[in-house]
Structures are given as C-alpha cells and as structure tokens.
C-alpha cells in the first residue's frame, strides 16, 4: 500500500509543515517522507513502523525509527511531545481509528491525516454500476484481503471532526497532480473528485 502512495501527497504534507519543527510520522514506511522533510525543511523527524524490512530501510538511511504498532504502542510518546504528528493513509486500517486519532491529538500539537477517499467518483460508480467492492489505484485490494477496516469519505472525516469538536485548520484534496483546498462550501463536489484527502487538525 505504501509503495503506491502518490509522491504528490508527500509534497502536500511537506508544504503544510513549517521548517525546523519536530514531526512524528506514524506508519513511516521506508522513510521516504521523513527523508524529504529532513532534507527540504530541516525537520527533526521520528518514525513509527510495524514492518521489519521498512524499519531496516529507515535505519540504513540514518532515520530514527521505532518498530511498533500504532494501534497499541502510542502510549510511549508523551503529551504534546511533537509539533506535528503525520498519519498517511493508515487511519482506515486500524481496529479503533477513533482511539488512535485521540492519541495522535494528544501527542502532537497538530495532526496531519491523509485518507484514501471512498467518496471519489470512480469508487462510487464501480460499486453502483458493477455491484462489486471497488478496486482502484488508491484502493488496490479486494474485499477479502484489504487491510482497510474502516473506509470513509472526505465528507465523513469532515463531519466526524465537527462532531468531536476537533478543529479543522485545512483540508486539501488531491487528484493525480492537482490539489485544491476543501471547505464546507465545496465539500460535496471535492468529495466526488478527490482521490485522497489531507486534513490538518488540532
């Protein structure tokens, strides 16, 4: 899943982050984003990653990474110990995304979350026209082997933040190489045409 992640998304995340900050990347994969943030923005990065090969890859690159499971091991990070916590396209794979999200907001002064948008028009039409669970570039797995347990749309996460009194500072929709700002006013249309949604919350 990590390998298919768009480079564009990392670029958007990097643009959201100020220079010289402390950032924790949850599910940091092979460290591509951490590397980008360190080189381009002089950000002090830390990663959390479950997969042993990815952990090794980060260590080879000299990137600090802790092998562990975000679902169960976020307690090790103290309150507000990072300026930003980044969670890239993993929220939907947790058993208890709400609990994870709460923890992220505890650890970081701000949080950046990206989600594959289940409201994207291709996803919607696949289900509507063929009556089958959609398989797309952003959602490459079939229903029986997908790690995604809690799929949601940009609109869902938007509403969720509202309900839980989480402050939405910025939402960016990504479609191929185009990005656009998402507000309440254009939510319906952006929810239809964005492949990925990136939320900056606190």
């Amino acid at each position, binding site marked *: 899943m990590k390998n298919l992640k768009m480079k564009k998304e990392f670029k958007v995340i990097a643009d959201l982050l100020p220079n010289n900050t402390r950032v924790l990347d949850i599910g940091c994969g092979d460290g591509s984003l951490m590397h980008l943030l360190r080189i381009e923005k002089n950000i002090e990065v*830390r990663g959390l990653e479950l997969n*042993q090969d990815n*952990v*090794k890859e*980060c*260590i*080879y*690159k*000299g*990137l*600090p*990474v*802790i*092998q*562990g499971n975000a679902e169960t*091991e976020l307690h*090790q*990070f*103290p309150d507000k*110990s990072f300026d930003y916590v980044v969670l890239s396209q993993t929220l939907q794979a947790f058993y208890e995304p709400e609990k994870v999200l709460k923890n992220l907001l505890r650890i970081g002064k701000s949080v950046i979350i990206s989600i594959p948008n289940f409201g994207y028009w291709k996803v919607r039409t696949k289900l509507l026209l063929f009556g089958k669970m959609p398989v797309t570039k952003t959602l490459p797995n079939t229903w029986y082997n997908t790690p995604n347990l809690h799929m949601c749309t940009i609109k869902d996460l938007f509403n969720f933040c509202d309900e839980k009194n989480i402050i939405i500072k910025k939402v960016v929709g990504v479609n191929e190489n185009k990005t656009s700002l998402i507000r309440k006013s254009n939510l319906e249309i952006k929810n239809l045409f964005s492949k990925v949604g990136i939320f900056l919350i606190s």
Partner: protein
Amino acid sequence: MPSLAGLFFWMNIKLENIKKLDVTKPLKLDCGKTIKDFPLAYETYGKLNANKDNAILVFHALTGDQFVTGTNPITNKEGWWVTAVGPGRAIDTNKYFVICANVIGGCMGSLGPKDINPVTKKPYGLDFPVITIKDMVKAQESLLEHLGIKKLLCATGGSMGGMQLLQFCATFPDKAFSAVPIACSTSHSAQNIALNELARQAIMADPVWDNGKYVLKNVQPKNGLAVARMVGHISYLSEKGMQEKFGRKLQEKADYEFSFNADFQVESYLRHQGYAFVERFDANSVLYITRAMDYFDLSKQFKGGLVEAFKNQKTKFLIISFSSDWLYTTKDNKDIVIALNASGADVSYSEIITDKGHDSFLLDETEFLKTLKGFIDSMYEKFKNEKRI
C-alpha cells in the same frame, strides 16, 4: 589436562603479556572505597584514523572479556563476538577502530578478586571491594583518555554490556555520537536477581570455595562454578530453541542407562558448557560481576528517574531486542525506548524475530547483523559530516 593450579599459573603468565593500562587516577567506588594504580586490560582491532572519528567502544557481557574477535590469546578460542566484529563484518575492523576493555572485577587482566591485595600482599578474595556497573564504566573512561579519543563514533554492547552502555551514556552524555544497547535493561527484575543468586549459591555451596579463600590455595570451586554456568546457559536459550536443538534426544545411546549419567543431550550440553567455563573464569569474579548487575538500577541514580537519566542526551540510540529473549525481554528494552522518547532523545528501536533467545546477539543472526551494520555505517557518514562542519 594440566592440574587447575597449574592451569591458573600458566594463565597468569599469559596475562602478563596482554595490553594493560595502569590507571593511576584514583577511582572512588560506589561502595565508598577507592582504588588506584590498578590494571585495566584491553584490546583494540583495526586502526584509529587521523580524524579519530572511527572509534567504536564495545562493552562485554558477564562472562566476556576484551578479546572480541580473532583468537583469544589466553584461551586460544575464538573471540566472543566474532560473528559481529572483524574484517568485512557488521562492525568492520577494516573501517573502524574497535576497543574493548575487561571490566574491573573480572579475571582477564583487569583488577579483580584473584589479584594481589597491596595491603595484605595476598590475593583479595572477598576482601575485594564490591563494584557496580558505574564503577566498571568509570574505569573504562580512563582508557578513552589514554587512547586520545574525545568522542566515540559508537558504543555498543549486549546484556551486561548494554547495561554498561546505558550507564556510560547517562554518566558521559557527550562521549558517544551513537549507541546501540542490545538485549538489556535499566535494572534487574526479581527473576534476573533470582537467577544470579542461584549461580552465586551454587558457587558458595561448593566446599572448595571456602568463603572465597580458595584463591590462596590456587584451587577453584569448579563444581559450583560449573553449576553456576549451567544456570546461565539455560537462561540464554529460549524454551522453543532448546526444544528444537535437543528435544528428548539421547546422548550417543539407544536407550536410558537407568543411571544419573548424562543420558539426555541437553544434560551433556550443560555439563560440557559448565566444565569448559571453569578453565577460563574465576568463581569470585562471577560473584562480583553478578552482584554489580543486580545492584544496577539506572532510575535510582537520578531523582527524576529514567527520563532524567537521559536528559539532554545528544547520543543517537538504536535499541535492539530479540523476540524470544526471556532474560531481558522486549518489554524491558521497550521501556528504555519509552524513557528515551520521554526525554526527547533520538532513538530507534528494532525487535528481531528469532527463536534463539538471549544468546541471539552472539550468533550469526542475519537480520540483527544487517540492522547493526546499517545503523553504524549511516552514523559514520553523519559523524564525519558533523565533524567537518
């Protein structure tokens, strides 16, 4: 086989010819006593470069010594970490300058209980002061000074070596650019202490031990010491690893002997390990070193506990644990990570999945060695750049 007395005499002759630093600076021990003008035996591998930025300090474990790799000139056996250290290995001696010192309290040339007490002119025995992990580490700092190394590229060690390393980083926060504590903890659990006590009781129950005075008679409580070593060996393997290695296999026989000889392979293994050990190690040293491990409690040394111990830490850490290690568990190692995180230190952590138990750090564990190599090599690049700036 030569008599034990003869063997020790012969070993002492050989110990005359190894590298030793005479530490003249008085060292005030945690117990309150002071030692001075004492020998610290050490060995180095590879070459220190002109910039002095390629030095790696290795701390050895309970029964280890300074002879990390190559052939140990005293025992004529392979160095204890030949799997990780040497030309072309994870810690490549073609590239790095590797240093290791025998701990004080040990028996491979550094000041220990079998040495002559300058006051009585007789071997110390139990008159030797009780030492701590902190004492061991402070003694080794003199060696870095002697070698002219201001900052190590890396310091590493497994088991008690890892404990020394954690102490080293807490006591000297600016002496190592990076550190790899492996399979260790910041204090002994009740089970750790119990196992060490079992080893000590085995030695003390041997009548030859005679309150540690066997050193005056040039003998060794070998039965007690062998049992102590057997206890250790059980704790270094995992239940699964042991089952796979030995199971219920019999030792070169078709059926039970209906006796108390070593019928099972696992018995034969333990006896072999136990009695091989008495030829190279001093029983009183086991007492002193296991005591130092039991007393070790890093959080107790600092008012704010572990977080305070690692405060202002500039060292970049990589903690490594082994999934089947029940002596220093993954949880023990993760607690170190949590403390380092809480103090804002630069820390990486990896758990190596293996059935080989605590012993894994001494074995040819590919994933472990690759991770170790990757970390040290990447740290070297950073350290060089940092020094240039």
